[in-house]
C-alpha cells in the first residue's frame, strides 16, 4: 500500500501553476512577444493613428482602455496553445494517473495567463503614462478598473483553454489570436457613432464596449457608469460558459 494520500486539490493546483509559470519563463521568445506586442500596439495607435483622430480629447487618453483590452486578448490567447500542447503530450497521462484533477491541469494555465497579463498590463500603464496618459482615478476606482480587466483576462483565458481542448493541433489553437479582432469594432479605438450604420449595432452591443466604457469611466474619474453591470454580466457569462465547456471537453478528451 502506498504511504501517500496524494496532494490536496489546492496544493496540486498550486504545483501545476508553478510549473506553468516556470515554463513561461523558459520560453524567452514568447516572453518577449508577450511584453513587446502590447507596447507596439500602444505606439501604433497613439503615434501612427492618433494624430489623424480628432475626438475632442487627447487620443492617448481615449485609446488606453481599448488597448488594455486588446492586449488582454493577445496576452490570453497563448493559453489555447499551451493547453493544447499539454493534452497532446504524454505528460497528461502521468498527471491523470497521479490523480491531478482536470480542472487543476487546465486551471493552472488560466492562472499563469493571469499572472502574465498582470505583468504586461503594468508595463502598458507605464508606457501609456510616458506617452502622456494621465488618469484621474481615485485608488479604489483604479483598482476597480484593474479588477474588471483581470476578470476579463480570466474569462478570455478560460475561453482560450476551451478552444485548446477542442482542437487537436497547436497550429489550430493559435487561431485564438483571432479573438483580438473582436476588440476593434467597439468603442475602444473610435466612438461607435462614427461607424457605418451596419457596424454600429454590433459595436454598440458586443461585450467589449461596456467593458471598455466601464474601465474608461473608472480611469478618468467619471465613475463606473451605467455599463458596469452589463460588463460584469458579460465577463461572468463568458467565464462560466467557457469553464463549463472546458470541464466537458476535458472529460471527452480523456474518456
Amino acid at each position, binding site marked *: 500500500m502506498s504511504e501517500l494520500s*496524494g496532494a490536496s486539490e489546492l496544493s496540486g493546483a498550486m504545483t501545476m501553476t508553478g510549473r506553468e509559470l516556470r515554463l513561461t519563463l*523558459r520560453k524567452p521568445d514568447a516572453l518577449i512577444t508577450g511584453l513587446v506586442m502590447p507596447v507596439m500596439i500602444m505606439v501604433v495607435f497613439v503615434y501612427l493613428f492618433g494624430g489623424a483622430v480628432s475626438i475632442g480629447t487627447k487620443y492617448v487618453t481615449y485609446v488606453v482602455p481599448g488597448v488594455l483590452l486588446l492586449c488582454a486578448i493577445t496576452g490570453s490567447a497563448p493559453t489555447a496553445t499551451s493547453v493544447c500542447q499539454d493534452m497532446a*503530450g504524454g505528460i497528461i497521462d502521468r498527471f491523470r494517473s*497521479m490523480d491531478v484533477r482536470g480542472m487543476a491541469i487546465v486551471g493552472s494555465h488560466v492562472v499563469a495567463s493571469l499572472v502574465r497579463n498582470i505583468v504586461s498590463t503594468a508595463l502598458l500603464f507605464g508606457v501609456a503614462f510616458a506617452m502622456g496618459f494621465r488618469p484621474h482615478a481615485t485608488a479604489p476606482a483604479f483598482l476597480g478598473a484593474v479588477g474588471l480587466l483581470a476578470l476579463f483576462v480570466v474569462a478570455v483565458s478560460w475561453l482560450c483553454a476551451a478552444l485548446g481542448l477542442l482542437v487537436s493541433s497547436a497550429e489550430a489553437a493559435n487561431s485564438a489570436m483571432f479573438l483580438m479582432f473582436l476588440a476593434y469594432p467597439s468603442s475602444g479605438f473610435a466612438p461607435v457613432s462614427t461607424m457605418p450604420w451596419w457596424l454600429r449595432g454590433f459595436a454598440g452591443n458586443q461585450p467589449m464596449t461596456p467593458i471598455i466604457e466601464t474601465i474608461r469611466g473608472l480611469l478618468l474619474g467619471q465613475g463606473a457608469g451605467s455599463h458596469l453591470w452589463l460588463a460584469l454580466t458579460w465577463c461572468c457569462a463568458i467565464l462560466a460558459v467557457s469553464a463549463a465547456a472546458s470541464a466537458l471537453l476535458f472529460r471527452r478528451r480523456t474518456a
Partner: protein
Amino acid sequence: MNELAIETSGLKKSYGKAMVLADLDLRVPRGSVYALLGRNGAGKTTTVRILSTLSRPDGGHARVAGFDVVADRHEVRRSISLTGQYAALDEMQTGAENLRMMGRLAGLSRPAARLRATELLTGFALTEAGARQVGTYSGGMRRRLDLAASLVGRPSVIFLDEPSTGLDLPSRQAMWDTVAGLAADGVTIFLTTQYLEEADRLADRIALLNGGRLVAEGTATELKDRVSGQQLDLHMASEAAYASVTGRPDVLPAHADPVALTISLPTDGSAAHVRALLDQLDPSRRLIQDFAVHGASLDDVFLALTQEPSPRSTAHV
C-alpha cells in the same frame, strides 16, 4: 490483505466497431513481475490504460491494489504509477524540477520532494544531468528519468508500457537491471512488451495477448512446455516437398514458413523420436534437405499460438 495486486474478469473494450479487448481475465500476484506479451495492436496499451484508470472498460471488472478501477479510481491512482511509451516529462524543466514537481503532486512536502528527487537522481545515475533541461537528454536518459518520476510516490503497483521500445542495447540492458531491482524491492510490476526476450528475462509470469484475447498464460517454463521440450526444425528441399509434408493430415507443425520452406515439429529430442519423425515424413529421403533440434524458446510459443491461420492454406501460393 488481498494476495492479488491486479485482478480482472471479463474485461472488454471497443473503439467504435473495432474490438480491442475481449473478456480479458488476469490474475497478477502481489510482488510479482508480470509481462503482457503481444504484437502491435494486440490490446496491450489498452489494458494498461484501463488498469491505470485512464480509460474505462466497456464491460467486466478490474481491481488494482484492492480497488476497483472505475468506482475507486482515486484510490487506485494513489497506489500506482504509469510509465507510458512516450516520456511524460516537461522538456523545458530540468530533471530535478520534473522530479520535485511529481513529488509535490504525489503529496510530498516541499523538503521531502527535494530529498526524494535527489535520491532518485542518484539512484538512476542522473545526478549531473539533474540540473539540465530534459530537452537536452538522450533517449536512454529520458527513459530513466521517466521511470524515476514514476517512482516518486513509492507506488505499490508499477505499470510499464513497452519500457524498452526505442532504446539501444546498452540502455535496454540498463532498463532491465532497473526493473529487476524494483522487483527485488517487492513492488508489483506489470509491463507490456513485444520482445520475447524481455518477457523471458524479467517476468515471473507471462500472458500472451493476441487480437484482444488471452491465448496463453503461465511462467516462461510452462509456456515453453506447451510447445514441448524440444523442437525439430525441418528445412525442405523444394516447394513441392514443403507442400506434400504440410498437406499431410497427420502433421501438425508448431510453426511452418512457406517462404523459407521450414517446418517445426514438437519432439522429445531423443534420437529414436527424431529418426521416427524423419522416416515417417520423408520415407523416400528426398523431401527434407537438413534439420536441427533445439530447445523450445518463447519465440516458438509466440509463433505457435499467435500465427495466422494454418500455413497449409498458403503453401501453394
